[in-house]
């Protein structure tokens, strides 16, 4: 039984079909990459899975149970955590408090949550910033705090929306390493990225979205050579834009 199962999911905004009959299965322990040009519908799909949007059609099942239309907080309780494309830390709270908010989802008492948060902060390498206000950090640090906040909820599936975009080469390397370590903890990862060179080496499997539809799915090396993908993704539009 797959951990996450998206069946025939459709999401429309007025006349625009942002997600068109999407079918996805993700097995426990996998790292699955979701790529596609700007506006392909990647974030929309994340929002549908995480409960921020209600799909117009289709269903989302997690660990064998249907969670379609659940509000985000319930989805989180089931074991799905996410980060946001434009980082959304709690700016006016310290790094530690940010992560404690995540930890509280499983641990009701403050001391326990603090302990858990410190553990996670150490894991992502943000322990020394724990007392700083999250709003004052650089983007790279904010992204890690956001990831820590999500990890503190003890997810089975972690969804990362462009966790790497906008980082410099060194930060990128660290982020990739961190993703590897998260996977080693047994957490399944579903990540969006629109820079192919980053996502290829870390993903077990890649799904390509274009204009709301899945146009290809497979191993990274297959995707890299797939006609359709090259055309949609690197092809005409890319050249026209540059």
């Amino acid at each position, binding site marked *: 039984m797959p951990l996450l199962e998206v069946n025939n999911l459709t999401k429309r905004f007025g006349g625009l079909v942002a997600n068109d009959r999407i079918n996805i299965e993700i097995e426990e322990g996998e790292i699955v990459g979701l790529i596609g040009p700007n506006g392909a519908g990647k974030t929309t799909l994340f929002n549908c899975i*995480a*409960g*921020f949007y209600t799909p117009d059609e289709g269903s989302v099942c997690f660990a064998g149970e249907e969670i379609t239309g659940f*509000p*985000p*907080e319930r989805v*989180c*309780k089931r074991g799905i*955590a*996410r980060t*946001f494309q434009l980082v*959304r*830390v*709690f*700016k*006016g*709270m310290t790094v530690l*408090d940010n992560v*404690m*908010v*995540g930890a*509280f*989802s499983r641990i*009701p*008492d*403050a001391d326990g*949550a603090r302990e858990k948060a410190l553990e996670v902060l150490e894991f992502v390498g943000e322990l020394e910033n724990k007392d700083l206000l999250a709003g004052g950090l650089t983007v790279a640090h904010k992204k890690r705090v956001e990831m820590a*906040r*999500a990890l*503190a*909820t003890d997810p089975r599936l972690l969804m990362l929306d462009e966790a790497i975009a906008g980082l410099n080469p060194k930060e990128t390397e660290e982020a990739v390493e961190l993703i590897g370590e998260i996977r080693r903890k047994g957490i399944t990862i579903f990540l969006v990225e629109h820079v192919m060179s980053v996502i290829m080496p870390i993903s077990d499997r890649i799904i390509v979205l274009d204009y709301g539809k899945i146009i290809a799915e497979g191993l990274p090396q297959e995707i890299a050579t797939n006609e359709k993908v090259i055309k949609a993704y690197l092809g005409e539009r890319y050249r026209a834009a540059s």
Partner: protein
Amino acid sequence: MTDTLRQRLIRQRLPWPAIVAGGLVGLFILAFPFLFTRPFPQHLMILIFLYGVLGQAWNLLGGYAGQVSFGHAIFFGIGAYTSTILLSRWNVNPWLGMLAGAAVAVLVSIIIGYPCFRLRGHYFAIATIAAGEIIRLIFVNWDWIGGARGLFVPMLDESLLNFQFHTTKAPYYYIALTLLVASILVTRWVERSRPGYYLMAIREDTDAARSVGVDATRYKLFAMIISAFFAALGGTLYAQYLLYIDPDSVLPLALSVRICLIPVLGGTGTLWGPLIGAAILIPMAEFTRVYLGGGGGGIHLAVYGALIMLIAVFEPGGIMSLVKRFRKRRT
């Protein structure tokens, strides 16, 4: 026992001078009615405590959870009216009336909060104004509860049980102080436990908070309920203290505004902000009222307004954030 207290103090690394100063302030506050026996200073302190409670009530919802309410007079008024009606119609003891008032206020807060919490920011603030005005107008036009003429609280014998004292203000002083301490302790508990973290997360970014499992509506309601509860207790205290209430004194928009100005001045989302705000604003208001009389009408509120603008623009954290900055510079 003393040992654990000492350990706790050591853990918090409070310097001894601070502890001594705190103890002295505490003693001074406890002894105040004996040191200042004239009515005016006691009256002033009672008002500071009362507004400290109201400000703290507002602070839980507006400061910690970031849901700005311009309708807190609703709960204050409901507290005042419930106990007064119960007492004058059915002779119910004011203390029971106080609890009943808090219960009714909590109920009303849920009825208002549940639909309104779908609104964000400005829309919520305006909705609370609308709700407040609706309730005020209903009270003004409801003859059974006195309408615009208001209600006199029936005179009872002077005793703690009767919650009435005619020859001295000191008992009111201690009741107000108890309420204040209770509101501060509850806020402190909230601040340091899961609900407090959740409320702050909701204030900072509601969607992000929901993504890590925060049931935003539920916790906003939680804040609203505690908030309404304390505001209503304050309402009964006010009614028993002044022995007369009418919609213009316990339900006007101006009161809602005064309630929120207090924590805004002192520092929203901080434990001590409301008390600091009350300790500054209330004496200011009372002195201008006493010394300028009717002719000075409005000037203290004009100064409030200017203060609020200045704070919003230059120091959104209020006086508490000034204090914090000052401390940081010293160390």
